């Protein structure tokens, strides 16, 4: 009897061991070529590509039909900051990252600092493609260098002013062209019971867009060290401007992307939104009752007569370290983001606003949009795209920076501190985060 019991115990252990052995039986060759050159591979190639853009499969299917030797397999997941970036880092660590991935501009330095991206500069046609892209988007993927390219720009988010043309007209208020006029209009609108806009306490990249428009910088990198400058003069000017509006109850402060926020726009309580090109869909879906009553104008300027635009969002397709097929991956990334058929497909399925100058001329982007009273709104954005400062640099820990500044903004809206305090706090915490990762910071 005892023997039997022991045998049963051994059997359990043996089963466990077998299961584990079965697990490891799948083991094989890892990837990891150090491709200094960018040469074509032999034979058929299958690339994996992770993105979160719904319907991107359609564009990829066009490529797969035309390129039987370079097949691309799309994998989708949550948006970058919602988990996909973390997955990329885990996969890089484990050596099984996909060949290509969707990376927003503000996350590229993070991947670059962690040495997760291949330099595409040696690949055929990449450097030559620079001219095809809107100036500033190339700056985002070359990180300000001459001989390095860490991705191919896909889309951009030039900012302009969405406004309720009907309300402005009825009340005889001129559409503001400078931030000074914007504040004056805010006072008039407040007197009518509305708010000129809603200040977002958590869209820190929108706020960065305001700073960007004012020719400000948050980060600089001289190749060796990072300089963190969340509290530059421009940055503080922008912060003080909004602080004044908040303190005087001239802007609404609903948490963005919530029902009450949508409702504030839908009910006509809030009149304008200084937002990116993709915001056109957000309004149309969040405020359906206001169809036909919106227009788009150039963003208000810091100086009368100037024409500077900010940017909010946009992403690139990057190639991860460890790919065996750098050449093919670069070729696909270039096609996906420059060919007319791909850009048309991406615009149809996911309203992707292209990063190439030719893409801005897509027929579909020349048409009037019904929700905006038939206005050809994309003409405004195409112009704005050309007015974005090409030298804006993101830091290597933007997720953390966003979170810390956002905490401060929320506190400021609750009356605890100011937006400028929040930036100072974000500055200190960002420097601490960089140092914690042993990233050199200039003091």
């Amino acid at each position, binding site marked *: 009897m005892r023997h039997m*019991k022991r045998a049963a115990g051994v059997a359990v252990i043996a089963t466990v061991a077998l299961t584990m052995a079965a697990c490891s039986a799948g*083991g094989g060759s890892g990837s990891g070529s150090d491709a200094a050159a960018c040469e074509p591979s032999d034979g058929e190639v299958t690339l994996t590509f992770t993105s979160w853009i719904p*319907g991107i499969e359609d564009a990829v299917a066009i490529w797969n039909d035309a390129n039987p030797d370079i097949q691309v397999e799309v994998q989708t997941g949550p*948006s970058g900051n919602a988990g996909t970036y973390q997955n990329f880092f*885990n996969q890089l660590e484990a050596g*099984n990252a996909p060949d290509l991935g969707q990376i927003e501009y503000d996350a590229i330095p993070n991947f670059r600092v962690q040495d997760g991206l291949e330099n595409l500069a040696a690949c055929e046609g990449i450097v030559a493609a620079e001219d095809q892209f809107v100036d500033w988007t190339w700056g985002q993927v070359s990180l300000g260098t001459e001989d390095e390219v860490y991705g191919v720009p896909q889309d951009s988010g030039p900012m302009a002013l969405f406004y309720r043309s009907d309300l402005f007209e009825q009340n005889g208020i001129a559409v503001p062209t400078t931030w000074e006029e914007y504040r004056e209009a805010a006072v008039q609108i407040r007197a009518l019971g509305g708010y000129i806009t809603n200040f977002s306490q958590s869209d820190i990249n929108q706020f960065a867009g305001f700073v960007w428009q004012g020719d400000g910088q948050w980060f600089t990198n001289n190749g060796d060290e990072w300089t963190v400058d969340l509290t530059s003069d421009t940055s503080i000017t922008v912060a003080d401007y909004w602080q004044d509006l908040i303190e005087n109850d001239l802007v609404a402060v609903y948490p963005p992307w919530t029902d009450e926020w949508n*409702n504030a726009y839908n009910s006509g309580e809030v009149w304008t939104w200084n937002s990116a090109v993709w915001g056109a869909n957000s309004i149309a*879906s*969040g405020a359906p009752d206001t169809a036909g009553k919106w227009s788009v104008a150039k963003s208000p300027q810091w100086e009368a007569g100037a024409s500077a635009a900010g940017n909010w969002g946009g992403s690139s397709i990057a190639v991860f370290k460890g790919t065996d097929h750098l050449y093919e991956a670069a070729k696909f990334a270039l096609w996906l983001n420059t060919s007319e058929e791909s850009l048309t497909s991406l615009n149809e399925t996911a309203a992707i606003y292209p990063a190439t100058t030719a893409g801005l001329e897509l027929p579909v982007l020349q048409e009037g949009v019904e929700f905006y009273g038939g206005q050809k709104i994309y003409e405004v954005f195409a112009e704005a795209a050309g007015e974005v400062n090409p030298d804006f640099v993101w830091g290597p820990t933007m997720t953390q920076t966003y979170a810390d500044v956002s905490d401060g903004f929320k506190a400021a809206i609750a009356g605890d501190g100011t937006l400028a305090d929040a930036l100072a706090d974000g500055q200190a915490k960002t420097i601490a985060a960089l140092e914690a990762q042993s990233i050199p910071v200039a003091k």
Partner: protein
Amino acid sequence: MSRVIDADTRKPRSSSAATRTPRAGGAQRESLVSRSVAMLIMVIFTLYFLIPIWWLLVASTKSRGDLFTTNPLWFSELNFWDNMVALLTYDDGIYLRWIVNSIGYAGVGALVATILAGMCGYALAKYRFRGREVLFNVVLGGVLVPATALALPLFLLFSQVQLTNTFWAVFLPSIVSPFGVYLARVFAEASVPDELLEAARLDGAGEVRTYFTVSIRLMVPALITIFLFQFVGIWNNFFLPLIMLRSEELFPVTYGLYAWNSTINQFPELRSFVLIGALLSIIPLIVTFLLLQRYWRTGLGTGALK
């Protein structure tokens, strides 16, 4: 055999019936006020838990335009069927695929986990062998380690053997349930009499046969409890698929909905899919609970007493 089981289960039942009568009488004498207060608190909490589900139900019947413009807690134009068809046909019916995946991970995973935990707990309860307590304590220690903390190490392990982004990456970690082993041991100790095992052995039944024909029947309430715990655990285990899976075709429904939800700022058309998708995704859980809840209660009590 069945007579023995009956006798065993009848006893606790009659004794609890005996104690219930005086207790109920005492409750009657409590003041009306305290009973109403208790009732009120329960009603408030019931509403607290049910209103979100009500909201979900209402929201999933609305068209995208009505969602923000009409009363959030009451119906406007009924659009449920259209929403559902749109959801089920979106992206070649990927949503149905996710539901099937979830049922696969949670259903099959919980079944295997239950069998393993039952056998393990039974062995720990009924066999004496060296290191038994150590083994049991190690398993018990496993209860204390949250599944979330294990996800990343598991990912690196599975990467070594090239099993990430496969069905196994989510399934294999799901078939282990330390808490199930604990529950099975406690229950087996209490409900499987040694005399019965002796009798079975004398009748010539082998250990394995004894387990599967005799002991397992006595352990059914515990096994169902383990199954339910594990089913819910796997169904709601979101972090593991998030880290392990890349191909949409492998996602469980929770992760798929999360992926959609994370992009609704830029792709607002996904919002109504997330809503109705969330509503439909709780149906399998509700069905499982309704079918198995009476066993669940018995099992829970056992675990609590020991």
